[in-house]
Every structure is written in C-alpha cells, then in structure tokens.
C-alpha cells in the first residue's frame, strides 16, 4: 500500500481511487444517465480537492479514518461475488435466520455487495408504492428521480464524494399521496466475505403528501466480511406525511461503515428516525435533517451497543429553517470492553425560526473501565423565541440496583443483563413497529450474554 500524503486537515486521495474511476468510466460507458456522469466528474474533482478528513477537522475530532482510507478496497461495481451461487445461498440463510430481520415484512428488497439481487427480493409494486432498484429507476426515466436525486446532498467530506463517484445501485422508493401502510418496506444490504470491497449504496425515498409509511434500511454481512460500506440515503417527506425510518447497522466487526442520511421535511410532516448501530470496526453515521416547513417534526432515537475495539460515531444535525418546528433527540449508548463511542448533536435554529422547540439527550452506559464515550451538544441559535434543552450522562451499571436484583435471587449475570436491557428498552420503547422493537430488545439481551460469557 502506497504511503498516503497527509496534511493538517486532509488525507489526500490515493491513486487507487483515481485509477479505478478511469476504469469505471470505460466500463460504464453509455449505460448511465448524463447527469450522473457529470456528478461523477464534479465529485472526483471535489475528492481531489477535499480528500478525507484528519482528526484536525472538528467534525472528525474523535474518529480516525486512516484505517479505512489507507486500504485499497475493490470497487464493488467491478466485482461479481453477488452472482456467486454459494454467496446468494448464504445471504438467504442469513436473512431467514437473522435474529432481527427474519419474518419482519412481506416487502423486502435485497442487495449483495451493492448489487440488486432479484431472486431474494419480494416486493409488491402497486400504484401507490413504487419500490425499484435505482438503476431501473434511472432506466425508466422517472421524472421524480431526476427532480430529487442529489437535490440537497452536499459533499461534506471525501466519503460523500466517494459515494457520488462509485455508487452502483440502491433503492428508489416512491410513495404517492394519501397512502397509509403499516407493513414496513425492508431494504437489506448484505456484504459478502469475497474480497475486500468498497460498497456504495445510494437510496432515494420520496414520501408524498398525507401518507404514513415505515422504511427499514438494514446493513449486515456474511461472517468475516472485510468490506467498507459507504452509504447515502436521501429522504423527502412532503406535507402532512409521517415517515418512520429505521437504520440497522449490524455488519461484521472486521468491516467499516460510513453512512449519511439527508432528510428534507416539508410543512407539518413528521420524520422519526431510529438509528441502531451494533456492527463494524469503525462506524460513523451522519443524519442531517432540514425542517423546511412550519409545523414539521423530527424525532431522532438512537441506540448503539458496541464491544471489542469497535468505534461508533453518531453525528446528527437538525436545521430548524422555519418557525414552529419541533426536534426531539434521544440517543443511548452501551459500550463494552475496549469500545469507543462518539455522539455529536448539532442543532441550528435559523434567524426567523421562532417558536422552535428542540430537545436533545444522550445517555451512556459503560460496561468496562476501558470503554470510552465523547459526547457533545452543539447549538447554533439565531432566533430569540426558542425553547432548547440538552443533556448528556455517562455512567455504569448501578450497584444498588444490581444488589437489589441479586437479593431477590437473580444471578449476577442475569441481573446485569436485565439492567442493560432495561437501559436499552428506554429508547427502544419509542419504536412503533413492535415486531422489530421486540427483536432488537432480544438482540440486546443476546449481545449482553455474549459479552458476559467472554469476560
């Protein structure tokens, strides 16, 4: 691996990605729309300009991305592991047996190593709901795709540029007006254990007016996968609509995950985000929400439970662009063994965004003396009639509670598990899709048992 050039704020992009861009240009010739071609050209220039962030960059202060960017990942656009019969079989088994995903919904769309896999996908496309892979949506020349694709997504760092340049496929969901549907749409990305790949899923979810739906985005991998998932989802919620969005990241501890969710909310719309992070060696989520119409609401719930030497970094940004909006954020973290967590919740209240209500809370439970969390609220308020609160806590399992349970005959391990599960359920209780909530709660118990067994 060639040495990387690192200056104060920038890790220069390696020749590897520039070379792969050229290969891809030839490879893709003619098969992609012009606006994507020009996005790629702009983005490669931007990538050369901005590079990848060092820890001198404020937003990346606690997260060192060098272990990710120094690797020469195979670009998944050029790999064929997704066609491998044994990989597809293993992926199917994984979904069918997964503690969380099995039997979750009758609507699922599946990707392996970033490629759409039709044989594992079962979606019912009706007039009110379109669920397509992005390539197909491009192919069908959907007007909506051209109108909204990359509309508010800005390149904030090299990883965003990387996705623009190398995204291969993803999901396009279009919900028409006046649709209420309980059954969630489940988007599943599975990373295989073949080669070390860079996978760039790219999703676009458009929710029409007066509708109410649930979307679950999940990322998992086959045992031993060492891939780097770098994802962008763009979400638009139109007037009076409700979207409950779940992101579930449970990839291999040998892999990396960087994800961005860019959300735009219109008048009186309601966006609820549940961000669940359990996997990957280094994980980073950026959830950006623009409240761009009066009466819009954003609810952000997060749970991260990490162990080993995992590093999980959650950055959220709520932009109160219009008056009379509400944002409510509640993130909880459980950090075991030598893991490390970062929470950064930024709230911007624009000039004129009066009668804003913005609440934020981050609570952490450290299960070991070697685990660590850095938590920080960031408020930028330019209006004067604003109600804004924030708070953060870091603590351990409470000794008095532990003794209380043990004095009732409950084994120490079980008592600890109960207490950790209770800590998690406090945030999980906000999930309205009960089957998923129960499964995540079970997953927390299992994760806790595994950790106790090992230590």
């Amino acid at each position, binding site marked *: 691996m060639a040495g990387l050039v690192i200056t104060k704020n920038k890790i220069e992009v390696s020749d590897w990605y520039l070379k792969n861009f050229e290969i891809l240009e030839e490879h893709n010739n003619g098969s992609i729309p012009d606006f994507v071609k020009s996005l790629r050209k702009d983005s490669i220039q931007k990538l050369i300009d901005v590079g990848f962030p060092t820890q001198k960059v404020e937003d990346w202060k606690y997260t060192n991305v060098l272990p990710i960017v120094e690797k020469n990942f195979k670009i998944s656009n050029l790999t064929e592991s997704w066609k491998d019969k044994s990989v597809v079989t293993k992926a199917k088994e994984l979904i069918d047996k997964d503690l969380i995903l099995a039997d979750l919904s009758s609507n699922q769309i599946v990707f392996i190593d970033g490629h759409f896999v039709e044989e594992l996908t079962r979606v019912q496309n009706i007039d009110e709901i379109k669920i397509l892979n992005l390539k197909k949506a491009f192919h069908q020349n959907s007007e909506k795709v051209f109108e909204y694709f990359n509309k508010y997504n800005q390149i904030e760092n090299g990883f965003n540029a990387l996705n623009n340049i190398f995204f291969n496929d993803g999901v396009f969901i279009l919900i028409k007006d006046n649709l209420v549907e309980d059954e969630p749409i489940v988007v599943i990305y599975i990373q295989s254990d073949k080669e070390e790949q860079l996978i760039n899923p790219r999703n676009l979810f458009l929710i029409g007016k007066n509708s109410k739906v649930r979307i679950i985005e999940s990322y998992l991998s086959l045992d031993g996968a060492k891939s780097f998932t770098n994802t962008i989802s763009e979400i638009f919620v139109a007037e009076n609509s409700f979207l409950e969005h779940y992101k579930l990241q449970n990839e291999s501890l040998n892999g990396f995950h960087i994800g961005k969710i860019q959300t735009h909310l219109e008048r009186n719309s309601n966006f609820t985000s549940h961000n669940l992070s359990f996997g990957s060696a280094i994980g980073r989520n950026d959830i950006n929400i623009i409240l761009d119409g009066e009466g819009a609401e954003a609810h952000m719930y997060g749970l991260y439970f990490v162990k080993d030497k995992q590093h999980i970094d959650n950055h959220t940004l709520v932009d109160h662009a219009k008056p009379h909006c509400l944002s409510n954020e509640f993130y909880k973290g459980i950090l075991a063994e030598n893991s490390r967590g970062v929470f950064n919740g930024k709230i911007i209240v624009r000039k004129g965004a009066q009668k804003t209500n913005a609440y934020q809370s981050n609570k952490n439970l450290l299960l070991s003396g070697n685990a660590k969390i850095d938590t920080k609220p960031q408020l930028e308020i330019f209006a004067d009639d604003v109600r804004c609160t924030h708070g953060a806590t870091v603590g351990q399992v409470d000794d008095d509670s532990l*003794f209380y349970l*043990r*004095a*009732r*005959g409950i084994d120490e391990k*079980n*008592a600890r598990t109960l*207490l950790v599960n209770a800590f998690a359920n*406090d945030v999980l209780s906000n999930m309205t899709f009960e089957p998923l909530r129960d499964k995540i709660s079970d997953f927390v118990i299992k994760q806790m048992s595994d950790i106790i067994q090992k230590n």
Partner: protein
Amino acid sequence: MLRIKDLVVKVEDKEILKGVNLEVNAGEVHAIMGPNGSGKSTLANVIAGKEGYEIVSGEIYFKDINLLELPPEERARLGIFMAFQYPVEIPGISNATLLKTAINEIRKARGEEELDAMEFLSLMREKIKLLEMSEEMLSRSVNTGFSGGEKKRNEIFQMLMIEPKLAVLDETDSGLDIDALKIVANGVNLLRKDMNDRAIIVVTHYQRLLNYIVPDFVHVLYDGRIVKSGSKELALELEAKGYDWIKSEDKITV
C-alpha cells in the same frame, strides 16, 4: 435457623458491628431495635450479602450453611429475604418481570419446576390484593415513581410472593402512615401463619410497628453490640424510657 457469632464488621475502616451474637430459631419473630447509627442496617445488609462490608471476624450460619461464603443470590435461593429500607427504583424492568425472573431462578436452584405465565399471573393477582395495591402496578417499572409507602408495600408484596424462610425487614415502618403501617403489618402476619420452617427479624427504630407485629424476642443493638435482650415488654420499656436509658446502662450491661 440463623446463628450469628462474634460478628465484627467494618465499613471504610470504621468498625460498625463490634461483636454481635444472635440466635434465631424456626418459628420465632425477633425485633432488633436501636438508635440511629447503632449498626442495625449494617447487620441486615450483611445477612443479605451486600458488598462493601469488611467482615473482620465472626460467622453467620443459616441452617448450618456458612452464609458469608455465598453471594446474595445464593442466600436468597436458600430462603433469605431482605425488605429494603430504601427500595431501589429500576426504570425499564417491570415488577412482574422482576418477580417472575426471581421466583423462577429460586425454583430452578431448588430443582423445582418453573411457574408458567398463567400460574404466575394468578399468584400475583392473589397476593397483590392482600397489600391493597392495584394490579396495574405489576406492569409498572420496579418502584419507579412510587411513593415511600408504595415502595414499602411493594417489598412486602415481593416477600409474600417469594415466601422466604428467613425474612429480614429493615426499617419497613419508616415513612409509613398508620394505615399503610397496618397493611404492611398484616402482610407480615400472613407470612407468620405458617412459621413451621420460618423466622422473621424486624429491624426498627421505633416500637410502633411492634404493636402490629408482636415479636417473641426483642434485642437492643447499641454501638455495634447487642446490649440487651428480652421479651416484647423490653420494646415498651425502651419506648417509655428512650435510648438514653440504654446509654446510661451501657457500661454495666456489657
């Protein structure tokens, strides 16, 4: 049933219990009285197995089993139950979950079959009525948002569910009004109906509770030692004369 011999206990280098001797037989109700700071709660906590106490010397045997070697959960499975002076609030764990987990772990440890959900529910419903608490409380988080009186009643409810061999009630009367006190005492007296293989230790500052739970023996714990033992009349005498009486007698009694 319980035999405590020459028990010396330190907390953060300070000797709290300075040689306690106590013998409790099946069928008996003992009251341990004493002023604040005399070591009453320390004694209760050490019997239950709370960490943070240094056992300097002495022994505690329960039915010929050395308790000091056992973690709190194993003591509970033997049949020891402490009603806490300050019951802990545990958000996120319901009272029903706590009890179901506890009772099934105790049963499993004794080689008994676990209770199924229906058996368990009907048992809970039966017992909770006795404490004049609403069933809705079962699905609420343990002690969370409970008033002081509700917490104490919940302790006694748990005790009736678990049916311990040795119940240690640590200041269960503190913070209770007279109505709640009677309900709690009734609960304890229900346990008393079958004392064949059972004993109760009531730890209290005041004589008040003992009007309703009449003890067979009363001990006065003062400055880490049991300085006086007697029948239930001793409690009345204490109430009349106050603890100063013990203090003035202290030197000659020991």
